[in-house]
């Protein structure tokens, strides 16, 4: 994998918002890019994409079962970027792992550059529709670009969520603008926390 990905500890509790984003992105990959995703124990490998000789046939994306939803979202955007860059050649398996060769490194860096642009809503309309709408926020991006402000933001958002839900405000507000923004901002922050290269320039 390109730059760095921070592995989340396996968790039995995932945010519903993150899981919903993940599901939408996975459906997008399947319907638009013909990528079938499955999960398996891959040890130190995070994911790999096998491309068939016939470009009309589905590609197979296998993701390590221990990845969290935020990391999977990053992997989907990164994979979509590889495909947009034409890296998915038949008989060339794209492996997302910790070690990479020089040529791999270049391809992953290119894919990360494009993934970053797609993440900030410059991808295909379908991809953009799958991502949290809060990413249009001009406030969020600069805060997520640096590790320190990202951590503080994550903590603050989690605190706000705890207060919001703990106080019963969320029940009163229902699915209002504040609740939706908070949920989506937390989800977007969690993804960038897992894959800081999505925000850092």
């Amino acid at each position: 994998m390109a730059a760095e990905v921070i592995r989340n500890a396996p968790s039995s509790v995932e945010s519903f918002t993150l899981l919903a984003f993940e599901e939408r992105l996975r459906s997008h990959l399947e319907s638009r890019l013909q990528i079938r995703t499955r999960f398996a124990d891959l040890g130190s490998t995070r994911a790999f994409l096998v491309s068939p000789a016939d470009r009309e046939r589905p590609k197979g994306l296998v993701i390590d079962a221990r990845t969290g939803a935020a990391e999977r979202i990053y992997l989907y955007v990164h994979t979509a970027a590889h495909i947009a860059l034409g890296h998915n050649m038949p008989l060339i398996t794209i492996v997302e792992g910790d070690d990479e060769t020089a040529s791999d490194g270049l391809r992953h860096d290119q894919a990360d550059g494009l993934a970053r642009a797609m993440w900030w809503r410059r991808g295909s309309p379908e991809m953009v529709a799958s991502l949290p709408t809060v990413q249009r926020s001009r406030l969020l991006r600069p805060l997520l670009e640096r590790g320190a402000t990202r951590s503080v933001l994550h903590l603050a958002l989690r605190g706000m969520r705890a207060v919001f839900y703990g106080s019963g405000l969320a029940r009163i507000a229902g699915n209002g603008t504040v609740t939706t923004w908070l949920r989506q901002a937390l989800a977007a922050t969690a993804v960038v926390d897992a894959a800081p290269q999505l925000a850092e320039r």
Partner: protein
Amino acid sequence: MRIRDTERVSHAIQVLKGARSLDGLVDRIYDITEGSLALDRATLHRIARGHTQVARAIDTPEDCIRLYFALMIVGCEEGLPAASVVEEGHAVLTGFVGEPLAGLIFRDLSGTLPKLRDRAALKEYLEEGVRVWLPK
């Protein structure tokens, strides 16, 4: 398909099948390839024993590649070291399609393998390989 170096292919199949019987191997290959290989039991027995150069049931490079992936999956299931699985798989593929094409196909695995360090990950790669090479 005309097999080159029948002895080497026979040896590779014997290694990859591990403790399985030849019938057990054929059954497992049918399972893995979802019955897409038109390989009959008698022909596989003859190939595995090095008694024939002609594998008429395996007509296309795609058939050979599916057989190559399937045999290597069996090797993984039999608990062979990843290096042996890869070496014997390469020998099978070379025996069937010749070195130029085998080298081309094998290049992906040899490029991918350093990152798929353990046998479980290698097996997942091979299973995905079979899936994408299954007929439509």
